[in-house]
């Protein structure tokens, strides 16, 4: 942790479940390596939920995949550290990763329709993890699978354990994914847009379930989404990402009420229930820069309504503007940004 890049304070400072420092990720492109994640720092403690928010391509998923050690082969981590319960993940052997995945850290993906293997029963896919990490017998694994299906709220668990993924709806499949992820009671669950592909009522049910499970299992939850509405529902703290960088971080309430970065303000204004007077949805003009042609200075400056000449000069660092509130905006003190009042 460096002075200029303060880490957001965790709820349980003494033993964070996951701790990321100065994480940078590069992808091999046609013209050498391209930086897609730039100096990310955060910690998550047990029973805590950290939201990672941003448009697609902002680096949220890269962050999650780095933790799981699932980055594509073309990716490399030139610097930074990821500690899972004190164990270093960056550069560790595959066997260590395979021991941690599924047992201490687990992940639920965005696409419930394609994330389950169509050729095996859901019971097999849940039990497999238990057998792998706890050396459980076939019978014990099956029993655990039934228990987990029950826990995630799938009716008739004892019978459904023998069903194949194609016999479940999208929402039910996402519950199965959670059952798989949580079967070995991991300390950390990463949920990458787990509800994006589902309709709104199912989404709400799943978020309720996730909250319940977090309480029951003392989970540290890293929740990735582009939807600030969902963030308000479930997260304790939020980090907003833009073009591979964290541009603002605060606890959820503060961030919503007093955003300190114009991009966050834009995201808040773009939320469906905050309509402009004309009744049209607000959207931030332009689109995020490609990793290769990042503008000089603040990455957001070409789209920012408040940009001043200084914004195109040096890249602004992430700094504390208040205790437990960080921003990358140079003008944060000057601007009076609009938040949301619940």
């Amino acid at each position, binding site marked *: 942790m460096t002075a200029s890049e303060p880490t957001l304070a965790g709820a349980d400072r003494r033993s964070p479940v996951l701790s990321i420092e100065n994480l940078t990720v590069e*992808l091999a492109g046609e013209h050498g390596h391209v930086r897609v994640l730039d100096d990310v720092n955060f910690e998550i403690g047990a029973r805590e939920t950290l939201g990672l928010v941003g448009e697609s391509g902002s680096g949220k998923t890269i962050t999650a995949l780095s933790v799981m050690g699932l980055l594509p082969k073309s990716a490399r981590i030139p610097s930074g550290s990821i500690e899972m319960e004190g164990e270093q993940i960056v550069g560790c052997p595959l066997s260590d990763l395979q021991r941690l995945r599924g047992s201490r850290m687990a992940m639920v993906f965005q696409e419930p329709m394609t994330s389950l293997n169509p050729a095996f029963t859901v019971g097999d896919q849940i039990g497999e993890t238990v057998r792998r990490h706890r050396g459980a017998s076939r019978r014990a694994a099956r029993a655990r699978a039934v228990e987990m299906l029950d826990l995630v709220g799938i009716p008739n668990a004892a019978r459904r354990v023998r069903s194949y993924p194609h016999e479940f709806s999208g929402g039910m499949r996402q519950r199965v994914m959670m059952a798989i992820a949580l079967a070995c009671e991991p300390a950390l669950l990463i949920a990458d847009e787990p509800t994006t592909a589902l309709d709104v009522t199912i989404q709400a049910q799943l978020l309720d379930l996730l909250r319940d499970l977090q309480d029951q299992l003392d989970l540290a939850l890293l929740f990735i989404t582009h939807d600030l509405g969902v963030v308000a529902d479930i997260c304790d703290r939020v980090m907003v990402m833009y073009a591979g960088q964290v541009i603002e971080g605060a606890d959820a309430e503060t961030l919503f009420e007093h955003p300190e970065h114009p991009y966050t303000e834009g995201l808040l204004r773009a939320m469906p229930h905050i309509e402009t007077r004309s009744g049209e949805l607000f959207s931030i003009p332009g689109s995020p820069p490609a990793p290769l042609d990042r503008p000089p200075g603040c990455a957001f400056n070409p789209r920012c309504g408040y940009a001043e000449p200084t914004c195109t000069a040096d890249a602004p660092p992430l700094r504390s503007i208040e205790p437990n509130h960080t921003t990358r905006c140079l003008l944060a003190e000057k601007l009076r940004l609009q938040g949301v009042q619940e």
Partner: protein
Amino acid sequence: MTSHLETAHDSATPESGETPEVPRTPWSRFRRRFRTQRVGLISLGYLIFVVGIAVLAPLLATDSPNAQDLRAVLASPSGEHWLGTDDVGRDVFSRLLYASRTSLLAALLAVAVALGLGLVPGLVAGYARGRIDGIVMRIADALMAFPPLILAVALVGVLGPGLTNAMIAVGIVFSPRFLRILRGAAMSIREETYIEAARGLGCSSVSIIGRHVLPNVLSPLIVQISFAAGTAMLAEASLSFLGLGVQPPDASWGAMLGRSYRFYDRAPWVVLFPGIAIALTVLAFNLLGDALRDSLGREER
């Protein structure tokens, strides 16, 4: 994640200095893509070389292909007989050159028969749909259910041995492949004319077929012809090997091999060289087919 990769790629293109590639016609797109297929180009070059050999055989041959030299039976390769001689003292090199004519013609004939047999039923089935389509496809499926070489041998058995009959038999065996492609073509022609009629646009169905349907049919057809030519050459070699194809004294590569096979332990070259000629040529047809498929296919992402 994927979006990252794509953005990285897309944003790189304008900087790379290449002219933006907007193919004007399917043909120019094909040429642009085929040029990058090194293996395909080599295969095509090799096939042109073989055709050249076949055409120029009389000029290139060191000997008459049927001249027997009983003093030099099963002679090993030497300065006089570059690839040795066979069991009646004929020059293997010269026979190999002449046999390339038969082998290539046989493959051509079989593909033509297969295409011809598949053409009308395929187009009719695809255009008429319904019951006729059902019957034609059932028959095509039934033909594909036969072990191909057994069916070919049986057909030659009843027609009588000989190169033409053998290639008709191979053509019959292969016809369902072309039938399927042409049926698909006819179905899309139907769709296109239907759409055109419904919209009442000015273009004639001839121009629709010429501009949209034909290129889409030709691509799979050309690819299939290349593969089928290779397989047909193997089939011809097999039938001639069994003595059911070309009849003496004419020879194809397969016939040379079949006749001399019983001497393989004493004179492996009489079998080896025609065998290698077949393998290389079939390989070239297959690799060319792969390259054509990759260059003719729709743009993939």
